[in-house]
């Protein structure tokens, strides 16, 4: 039977440092993805004055420690302890949030490449991610030219000081909390960091191949980040549609499970308060108590949505706070439910093996 507890992988938690200038959107990003604050509510977030560590304990593939770092740490003369170097030396990734609406673009760029160099020196294996953020205010053209400019600038600076090999270690992603881009960007970071990604991809490929379906996604159910997808191409906004579907399923189950959602709202108010409290100290807290937890542990839970173009989305909770979403043509799925159901079961069993195996490695 599938677990009620979320086990951790052998690698332990993945540490990610979140940096950027004041008001660039660091706290907003992790609050929206992991604490389910709606984007417009980030208006009320207060500035984070100290180092705050947020512990994310979702599915086994989404075990993170996010270090929300105050901008002072980025100043090269900062004497704070722990220093930026101390923190990135234990991190697998550095996430630099670059606000596209900033009034001091030159300074920001300067700070970006300085930070990259410092982080590389402190931890040469670190993945560096630049989130070019608040792109909701830009046109598509502006977005691309922004990205090109920033990337050319940083690449140039790095080459000038002979750090050519660092260039390929930095990825750039266009993000906004007001659309799906932040989830796509963070999913990619997550997939880069957890060691089982390619194994899961192969498993999904096999599943898709044997079931005659178009795509399959494995989601971390609470954050709606994608842990792995099969390797066939994903059309347009399909990924977004699948994650929106999970949201619909969570929201409606929140209302009708136990016919009682009052607890639900109180829970989330409660957690908002904790966020504010934790911003004043080095603190951590755990999201898995969120009421949607019971939803994803209910392994009898599934949802099917039919679309006008004949496509069907089918979601199934597969335990460990993970859910599998597949897209298929209606006529194919309808004549194959038995086979697909069987394959989902086999997939879940393999998944459980992967998870317990990596737990055993750890112990």
């Amino acid at each position, binding site marked *: 039977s599938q677990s009620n507890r979320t086990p951790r992988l052998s690698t332990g938690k993945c540490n990610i440092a979140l940096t950027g200038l004041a008001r660039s959107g660091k706290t907003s990003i992790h609050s929206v993805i992991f604490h389910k604050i709606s984007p417009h509510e980030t208006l009320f977030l207060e500035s984070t004055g100290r180092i705050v560590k947020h512990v994310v304990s979702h599915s086994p593939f989404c075990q993170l420690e996010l270090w929300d770092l105050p901008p002072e740490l980025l100043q090269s003369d900062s004497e704070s302890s722990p220093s930026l170097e101390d923190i990135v030396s234990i991190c697998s990734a550095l996430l630099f949030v670059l606000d596209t609406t900033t009034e001091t673009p030159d300074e920001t760029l300067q700070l970006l490449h300085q930070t990259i160099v410092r982080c590389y020196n402190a931890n040469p294996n670190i993945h560096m991610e630049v989130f070019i953020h608040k792109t909701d205010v830009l046109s598509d053209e502006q977005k691309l030219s922004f990205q090109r400019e920033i990337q050319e600038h940083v690449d140039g600076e790095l080459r000038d000081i002979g750090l050519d090999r660092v260039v390929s270690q930095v990825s750039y992603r266009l993000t906004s909390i007001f659309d799906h881009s932040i989830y796509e960007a963070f999913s990619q970071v997550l997939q880069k960091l957890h060691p089982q990604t390619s194994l899961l991809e192969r498993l999904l490929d096999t599943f898709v191949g044997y079931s005659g379906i178009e795509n399959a996604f494995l989601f971390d159910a609470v954050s709606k980040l994608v842990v792995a997808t099969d390797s066939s191409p994903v059309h347009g906004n399909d990924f977004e549609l699948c994650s929106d*579907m999970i949201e619909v399923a969570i929201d409606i189950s929140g209302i009708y499970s136990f016919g009682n959602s009052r607890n639900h709202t109180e829970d989330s108010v409660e957690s908002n308060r904790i966020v504010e409290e934790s911003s004043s100290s080095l603190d951590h807290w755990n999201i898995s108590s969120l009421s949607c937890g019971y939803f994803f542990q209910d392994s009898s839970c599934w949802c099917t949505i039919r679309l006008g173009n004949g496509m069907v989305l089918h979601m199934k909770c597969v335990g460990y706070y993970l859910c599998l979403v597949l897209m298929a043509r209606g006529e194919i799925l309808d004549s194959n439910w038995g086979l697909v159901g069987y394959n989902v079961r086999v997939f879940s069993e393999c998944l459980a093996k992967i998870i317990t195996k990596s737990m055993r490695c750890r112990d």
Partner: protein
Amino acid sequence: MEPDRILSKPRSRRKVLLMGRSGAGKTSMRSIIFANYIPRETRRLGATIDIEHSQIRFLGDLMLSLWDCGGQDVFLDSYLDAQRDNIFSEVQVLIYVFDIMSTDVERDGYYFNRVIRCLCDASADAKVYCLFHKVDLVPEHQRQTVFEERQRRVKETVKPFSVKCFATSIWDETLYKAWSFMICGLIPQLSKLDGALSRFCEISEGDEVVLFERATFLVISHATLHSHSDVHRFEKISNIVKRFKLSCNKNQSHFHSLELRNSQFLAIIENFTSYTCVLYVSYRSDIQSTAVKLNIQCAKSLFEKILGNDMEPSRV
């Protein structure tokens, strides 16, 4: 059913005034409810110049003539003066929108007062609704007090009308709550629908059945067997499904139906009559979704009849 249909044949046209000062959010809410905007897109809206008229067909038979009245002072002054007769005559509903964050409360009150006077002269039996809008900008713990304070002030001004007030925001279900309530008040067949829906709920062994207008996803009617602690659940579902529908549209497709089951309940959302969708919920674990769908199919023609859509609408 027959006489009913004949009565409703000349399409009933209802004049709805949407007023309030500039920037209050009138065009935003109209665009979200009736024109499938997502909340974020409303930031691009410019100030409305003079009046924008829209004709909205609701449930097939009801014609809403919605007057979105641009709220800059010059326009308001002209509505209250030169255009007065044109605007305030034969109004069925006045929806007056206040920006709850507005600092110019005095001037807000001044215009509201004058609008009410004009309405009283020209359409004394109109219904008046006040929306205190953008509550999302008020910190959560203050919302109730701020709302009550504003409501109290409005109720003093509005005599001899009685007024129903709502605190709304484009960012959550409060917008659906207010608009469902206001629009439902205009549906003539409402009590018939309520009765038929209760019967359907009983026959199909459901625990809850909710009827939504298909295009706007506003709640029209519901039948509930057991009391439920969340009184805002229908508006939440409107909001949830509408959001998902927009997400489907972005993918060049459209939402068709949903089926959701876990160990606690079964929920089905399907297109129902030509202008409605239905949500069916059962807490029974032995309920078969195919049976439910069949029941929904069977009930369709009865509801089409009640809504007066069982024949091609005759053109004059």
